[in-house]
């Protein structure tokens, strides 16, 4: 496996994740706050989008779509108002990176949004924040008030003639509202269900206007890109086509769980777990790694010598997702773990499309049966069949999110499942 040279890594966010960083004064003093905005006002929309493209910033929400390209999809002329929406519905189990950005450095997000709004020609922005982030919603609103008071938001920002209003909208606790079109429905006051695509939000999004939906971490990177240039940002990453740093949330059975900021593609999963996080808790054997939020197909202990970034992870059939790594030691029962994951997606399915509504619950029921001792030999193939009938056949990605874990767990840990079925209970219990 490729050994990666770890130089002194530059980090953008993590050194500021302290209570003292929150006030506007700190942001202006220590993080060159709102200087990027001034610079952006001297640039054209195309120049800003050009820098974004050069930066190789890829969406930090999970899909990894190039941000500059996405911004470029917004039509220059539009009869309907355009919108910039920040997806702060951070709900993928295991993910807790956006929370710290909002909690400690809210102004970097606000500045990024004003620049984004200026670049795409939007005068309204929304931060759709998950309902459970009560404290973060308040902190954001406080920061927005500060920004309005100092003229970084509102009418004629910094004398530029550009107006931009920013509103925090709290979700009501549905995971599906992290899917961008369900988010837009929810924002409009409708039932939180994904929409048929096309049309994509860039053409018809919030209130049917051209809309960009970006993740918190994505938008928070914008001021750095504008200030130091797209090329500089691109070079922070260690792989081609993947710029910047990445906030990685590590949880589960490791000695040092928590949030890490590392260059994109700068390490392997093994280095992350053993070098940065101090190895498996209690020095147990590693059983599995869920590498990108609970929907990412699971990896076995033999599969972790992979560079931890979007493309390499996709190449081995899993995904980087929201960069939330869950480490599982040999003491954890993988059947129980899969039930817990499957239950989550069944519970969070919006219920509009057939395979997801019917299939996620069916998988949960079969898994419960196996766990409670009434599993049958044919159940494992049935599970794989149901998952296959969901995978790629649903209206939105939630179906794939539910199917991926089932397919990967059953295929990679089939012996554990068979042992459950044979003995009618967990062999380790």
């Amino acid at each position: 496996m490729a050994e990666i040279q770890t130089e002194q890594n530059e980090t953008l966010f993590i050194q500021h994740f302290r209570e003292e960083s929150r006030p506007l004064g700190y942001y202006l003093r220590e993080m060159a706050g709102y200087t990027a905005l001034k610079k952006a006002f001297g640039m054209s929309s195309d120049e800003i989008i050009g820098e974004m493209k050069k930066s190789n910033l890829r969406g930090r929400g999970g899909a990894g779509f190039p941000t500059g390209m996405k911004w470029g999809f917004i039509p220059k002329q539009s009869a309907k108002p355009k919108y910039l929406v920040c997806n702060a519905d951070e709900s993928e189990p295991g993910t807790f990176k956006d929370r710290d950005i909002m909690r400690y450095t809210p102004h970097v997000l606000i500045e990024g949004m004003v620049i984004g709004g200026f670049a795409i020609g939007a005068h309204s922005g929304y931060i759709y924040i998950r309902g459970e982030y009560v404290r973060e919603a308040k902190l954001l609103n406080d920061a927005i008030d500060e920004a309005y008071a100092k003229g970084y938001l509102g009418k004629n920002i910094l004398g530029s003639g550009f107006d931009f209003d920013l509103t925090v909208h709290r979700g009501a606790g549905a995971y599906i509202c992290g899917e961008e079109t369900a988010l837009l429905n929810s924002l409009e006051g409708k039932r939180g269900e994904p929409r048929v695509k096309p049309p994509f939000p860039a053409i018809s999004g919030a209130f049917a206007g051209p809309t960009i939906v970006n993740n918190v971490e994505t938008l928070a990177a914008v001021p750095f890109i504008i200030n130091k240039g797209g090329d500089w940002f691109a070079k922070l990453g260690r792989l081609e086509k993947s710029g910047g740093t990445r906030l990685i949330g590590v949880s589960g059975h490791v000695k040092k769980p928590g949030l890490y900021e590392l260059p994109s593609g700068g390490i392997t999963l093994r280095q992350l777990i053993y070098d940065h996080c101090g190895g498996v808790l209690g020095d147990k054997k590693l059983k599995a790694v869920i590498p990108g939020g609970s929907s990412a197909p699971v990896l076995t202990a033999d599969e972790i010598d992979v560079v931890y970034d979007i493309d390499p992870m996709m190449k081995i059939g899993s995904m980087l997702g929201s960069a939330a790594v869950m480490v599982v030691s040999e003491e954890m029962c993988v059947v129980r773990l899969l039930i817990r994951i499957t239950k989550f997606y069944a519970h969070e399915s919006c219920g509009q499309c057939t395979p997801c509504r019917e299939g996620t619950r069916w998988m949960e029921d079969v898994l419960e049966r196996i766990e409670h001792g009434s599993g049958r030999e044919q159940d494992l193939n049935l599970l794989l069949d149901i998952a296959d009938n969901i995978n790629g056949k649903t209206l939105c990605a939630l179906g794939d999110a539910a199917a991926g874990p089932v397919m990967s767990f059953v295929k990679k840990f089939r012996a554990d499942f068979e042992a459950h079925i044979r003995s009618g209970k967990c062999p380790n219990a």
Partner: protein
Amino acid sequence: MPKCIIDGREVEFTPGQNLVEVAKKVGIQIPFFCYHPGLTVVAQCRMCAVEIEKMPKLQTACSTPAADGMVVKTRSEKVIQAQKATMEFLLINHPLDCPVCDKAGECDLQDFSFKYGDAYSRYTEEKRTYLDLDMGPVIKKNMNRCIHCTRCIRFGTEVAGIHEMVAVRRGNSTEITTVDGRPLETDYAGNYADLCPTGSLTLKDFRFKKRVWFLKRTSTICEGCARGCNMTIHQDNNVIYRCTPRENMEVNKYWLCDEGRFNFRYVNEESRVTVPMARGEVDWDAALAAARNALSGKKVAVLVGSDLTQEEAQLLLQFVPRHLGEAPLYHFGTPGIRSPQDDMPADRILKRKSKTANLHGLEKLGLKGFEALPSGTQAVLLVRGGRARLPELKGVVTVGVGVFRADEAQGFAAVLPGASFAEKDGTIVNFEGREQHLRRAINPPGQSKLLSEILMVWANSKGGTHV
């Protein structure tokens, strides 16, 4: 015209048309549940998945516009497998009791299960069940049969203009219901039953009255108002069981209001006079004689229901001068609606203020709306199809020809029982001047006759002379 290829056949299409519609043009059926041409596309049921060249995933045909040169397969191995999977998913929680379900025989779920599904299920868990809900007088709901296609919800908001059907809870527990479980309010509720692809929403008026495969269908026009919605009468053994809307994009699209849908009830009603009357049941000769006597030597006015056809009105225009002298003719039908100018839209959907179908036609024939009888009028010949509202007539002798309830005809000197809209052929003219045709679905009941026959007998029978 751009072309695409579906199952190896070249098909021309209009830009914007989706693959379901384009395939239909060459007789290729792509199955679907949630799609409906009159509602927004949601691509939820996933039944219409097709394979498109150069696309890795299956695409839903309902939400995919045809593109020039697109190559589509609707029966590839991948598609067939996906259809089987969707049918399996839809049926795991659906009761498998078609024999006792009233939708059987015209159920999309049943038909597509037969055509695209597997004969057995791998599902061994407990089926999901819901509590019943009373939705008011029109629709019976059985949520256990629901497949969550949401056509009803979309019909309410997009067509009927009322957000009364909603989805509550989510995922596997999603329930399609009314807001707070209230009864339905729309007066277009019957369409919910037409739209429902399963037996989840059925018409209270129709359910368990007749197995659908016994019904004979006749394409006709609704006589409920001046729009003239296209509809189908379903009858068996000379009894009408229901009426359903028939697509006509220029008149009523796919819909029918409840008033029009249930208007047929009077046709089968027991109190309808179906034998000739002259202060009691008599034979035709006696009734005709009584009618002639009643009008003879008197100053007569003729009131023509605007529920009659053009042909019937024309017969009267010839008959009256010959047999009733100078008697003036007026049309009647809806209180307060005397001329086409009065006939405004009655809602934002289909209904017109004229509650009869041929007001505009009779005006074209030169008849004027009835306001009051000319002074000195002693007798009235009242001719109607069955729906026109009878004007209040005092102090005159009345002879009725057509369809009347016994209580309506109580004071009449004679009743010559006629044919309702379902029992005759003829032309009616709607508010836009569109000529449409009523078709005979059943025979006039009892001794009732068509107006043409009645007038012919009247004219030819002995004593049928000038006043």
